[in-house]
């Protein structure tokens, strides 16, 4: 029976001809647009998550505590809310790090009469505190430490970037929704033509006592087939674009966003995109059916 229903659906698609092709093209465009924004947004999301992990707050100390006091100071900071980890950087460590940064110019540092760099604590906020509000609260807590001279760092810039990522996702959803609505209307039109073309079949099916499911399913199936075909084409187009563009963009992305490579959809993402296409087509088929039902 399934073979018959699928066969009828395919026969209907052939009947719809160009209108069915238009519907498939529109579904392809809408899902390709949606998928493109989704890919860009998910890669930016990875960058944001990575940068959130790299947010650090530095507490510059008034003076370098004696060796025995460092452990106690680290313990006091470690138990503070919003702290995931803390590292002590002594004056000598800071100078060494500066020399490393200066590279061949490190000799300049040796000319200094004294080490001017302060000792500091490098605090890693917990995930909850790696937001603008959480970082501000942590800064306030660290600033009241008696040993603290100055506290620096924030997560504002990460949040601004995250805001742009969310905006991009919203635009993607908006563009995808408009194109999806157009695709649904086209599938509905194609299905309406199909319903007209198969009115004799429907009449005979009702006359011989076919179940409503048998009468309706081919119409719904052809819509779903159009949707699945559109989604498969969109996925193929995105995969080809990704394969061509990603290797060329990755050096730039690595430099600017800190991502070593751009990722494509996960298997779940692929299934979701195919499912979305099938759903769009099915909805178009169902709407046409509902409109023609007495």
């Amino acid at each position, binding site marked *: 029976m399934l073979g018959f229903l699928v066969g009828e659906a395919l026969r209907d698609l052939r009947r719809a001809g160009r209108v069915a092709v238009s519907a498939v093209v529109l579904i392809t465009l809408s899902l390709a647009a949606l998928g493109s924004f989704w890919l860009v947004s998910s890669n930016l999301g990875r960058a944001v998550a990575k940068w959130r992990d790299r947010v650090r707050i530095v507490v510059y100390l008034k003076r370098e505590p004696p060796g025995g006091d460092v452990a106690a100071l680290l313990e006091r900071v470690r138990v503070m809310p919003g702290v995931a980890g803390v590292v002590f950087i002594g004056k000598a460590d800071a100078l060494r790090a500066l020399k490393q940064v200066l590279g061949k110019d490190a000799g300049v540092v040796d000319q200094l009469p004294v080490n001017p760099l302060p000792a500091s604590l490098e605090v890693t906020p917990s995930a909850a505190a790696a937001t603008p509000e959480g970082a501000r609260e942590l800064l306030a807590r660290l600033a009241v430490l008696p040993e603290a001279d100055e506290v620096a760092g924030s997560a504002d810039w990460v949040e601004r970037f995250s805001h742009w990522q969310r905006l991009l996702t919203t635009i993607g959803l908006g563009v995808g929704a408009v194109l999806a609505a157009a695709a649904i209307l086209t599938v509905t039109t194609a299905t309406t033509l199909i319903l007209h073309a198969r009115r*004799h079949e429907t009449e005979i099916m009702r006359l011989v*006592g076919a179940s409503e499911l048998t009468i309706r399913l081919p119409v719904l199936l052809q819509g779903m087939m159009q949707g699945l075909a559109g989604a498969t084409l969109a996925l193929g187009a995105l995969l080809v674009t990704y394969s061509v563009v990603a290797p060329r963009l990755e050096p730039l992305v690595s430099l600017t966003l800190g991502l070593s490579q751009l990722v494509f959809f996960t298997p779940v993402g692929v299934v979701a995109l195919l499912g979305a296409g099938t759903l769009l087509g099915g909805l178009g088929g169902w709407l046409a059916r509902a409109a023609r039902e007495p």
Partner: protein
Amino acid sequence: MIELHRVSKVYSVGPVKVPALREVSFQIGKGEFVVLTGASGAGKTTLLRLLYRDDLPSEGDVEVLGQGLMQMRRSQVAALRRSIGVVFQDAKLLPVRTVYENVAFVLRVLGTPRREITARAFDALRAVGLSARAQAYPAQLSQGEAQRAALARAIVRRPPLLLADEPTGNLDDAMAAEIVDVLKDIGAGGTTIVLATHQARLAAALRRRTLTLEGGRVMKDEG
């Protein structure tokens, strides 16, 4: 098999009420071959439509195959129709399918196992003398052949009841005689047949029980 009790049907055309059937009552037993005759507009087609539950009477009760048709759900209507074969004057063959496909279509729609479809479809085509034209398309058939193909489609499920609405209406006498012969053969196999025709000569030649309709009333029940 069929029982009508004081059945009336009135169509509303705007504010105008047009009576199609008036207080029609009769019974048809299992295996009977009944001819329903009368002029065009006498109510023959309306009566047949009530029997396969394509319409409901305005008043009265209709019982077919032991089931009252008045309070049926859609699924029950479908189940009833699986036991009724219907043939129309215009054959209603699907033009993009061959004769074989038209007959097999019914079996496929009803979920008959694939291995049975070919054998049963050819049995039906042989019964109407059309197995040699199985691969022809409806446009390639004569009117008589098209009507025989429609008959094959109607009997392929071996229904206990066959309703034929003017199946010879478009045919010349020779072709009409062929169709009548096929109907007689089907009837001889135990199928109950109700044949509606406006051709009084054909009805008389059949020498079967004949219900004559006039103005929506059964005026005669003979034979």
